[in-house]
């Protein structure tokens, strides 16, 4: 029916989301400051340099999870506000392509946020990142982000356009995302060498994170259509 291929559709949706973000600058003007404030508040709550250095990976990923909830809410708020999702459906868009597009846009935003948070933790919590740990940190963060984006996109699609979605989304996503938190935190711990861990201890977690990302992204592309289609 349409001459637009699936891949073009994915790219179009992703580019649209990133363009909206680029113009509104919510990520840089609101979400990043929020994430950094969270890091500062953790430091107040856990007074003590040694504790902060030890718990830095967990704190970074907690700040990441909480901030991601806001980004995800927003990613779907822009769709439902003007009935944009309905318009996409009327246009005959393949919903799984929409899922992948939104998911990729989310991955890009979350990775930017991660870089900021990790740099923030290096500066504020005094962790030192070894070169040998850098590869582990990058690969584990990317797979964790893919998993987190997929799960968030599924549930945000489900909760989009309903009253009370702000409080519902964390309730749905956070328990499911707990393997991501565990895996990403432990891998980052190994990368930072927090608590005397060595880099090699971090690699098994990459397996978990990858399986999680694959399961939920393919699951998401399957169920996203029926979820939105009503």
């Amino acid at each position, binding site marked *: 029916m349409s001459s637009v291929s699936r891949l073009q559709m994915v790219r179009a949706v992703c580019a649209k989301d990133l363009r909206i973000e680029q113009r509104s600058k919510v990520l840089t003007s609101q979400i990043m400051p929020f994430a950094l404030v969270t890091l500062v508040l953790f430091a107040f709550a856990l007074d003590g340099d040694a504790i902060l250095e030890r718990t830095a990976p967990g704190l970074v990923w907690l700040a990441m999870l909480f901030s991601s909830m806001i980004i995800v809410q927003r990613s779907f708020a822009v769709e439902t506000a003007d009935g944009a999702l309905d318009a996409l459906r009327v246009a005959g868009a393949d919903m799984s392509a929409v899922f992948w597009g939104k998911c990729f846009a989310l991955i890009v935003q979350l990775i930017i946020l991660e870089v900021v948070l990790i740099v923030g933790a290096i500066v504020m919590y005094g962790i030192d990142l070894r070169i040998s740990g850098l590869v582990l940190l990058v690969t584990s963060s990317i797979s964790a982000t893919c998993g987190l984006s997929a799960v968030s996109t*599924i549930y945000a699609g*489900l*909760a989009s356009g*309903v*009253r*009370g979605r702000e409080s*519902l989304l964390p*309730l*749905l996503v956070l*328990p*499911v995302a*707990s*393997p991501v938190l*565990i*895996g990403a935190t*432990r891998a980052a711990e190994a990368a930072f060498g927090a608590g005397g861990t060595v880099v090699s*201890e971090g690699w*098994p*977690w990459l397996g*978990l994170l990858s*399986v*999680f990302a694959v*399961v*939920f992204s393919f*699951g998401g592309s399957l*169920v996203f259509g*029926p*979820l939105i289609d*009503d």
Partner: protein
Amino acid sequence: MTLDPPSTVSTTSRRGTATAATRVLGVLTIVMIGWLGVFGLLLSPADRDQGDAVRIMYVHVPSVWLAYLAFIVTALASAVHLFGKSHSMQADRVAGASAEIGVVFMAVTLVTGMLWGRITWGVYWQWDARLTTTALLFISYIGYLAVRGLEGSRSQRARRSAIVGLLAVLEVPLVHWSVRLWRSLHQEATVLGTDLDVSLDGLMLFSLFVGVVAFTLLFLWLLLHRSRVLTMIDLSAETGLDAALAQRRAEGGVTA
């Protein structure tokens, strides 16, 4: 045995969700729970190490069995709704009723488990894979019930909750795997020993068996009643306004 509420409900003043079959089932359930009380509290011996605390197990183990059974039924009924040709609303109601029962008994499992843990291990909570997975599963199904409570049409609700019900099945092995991997790196926490390493004697095992049978009957009984109640709620949402209008008109002597 049908899941539909008895047809007399809408036509006579007798309100209820019982049929002859559920009454028999109810009586059987009560008898079995009575038996469980007799076996669990009186006949079965106290454990050599755990003392009388072992009796908590006669409620704990059957509840966890019931909760998992309920979640499996929810997943199956969700699949029937989602992939079945007719997108059966009855399957959706069974899924919802089963999840509600599962959440209640998951709470019973967690509370009895914590009480037992406090007596046996000295702590209420331990971060082992089984406990943590159970707790996260409990929260996930609270989320599932929240999704069922969302606004929207009934078919929307059914489809959304069916998908959430099926995603929860994906979640369980992943959460369990991750927590197990996590704990395996922290050996010091498993010193207390989380395996239920109890040598069960014959009578204890039999008491547990009685408990499992009693709770399975209880689940069936609750499921039948609860899904009938949900059917009635849906029916009343459909016909409630019409019936109320007709009643008001009749009061005023107006014919529609």
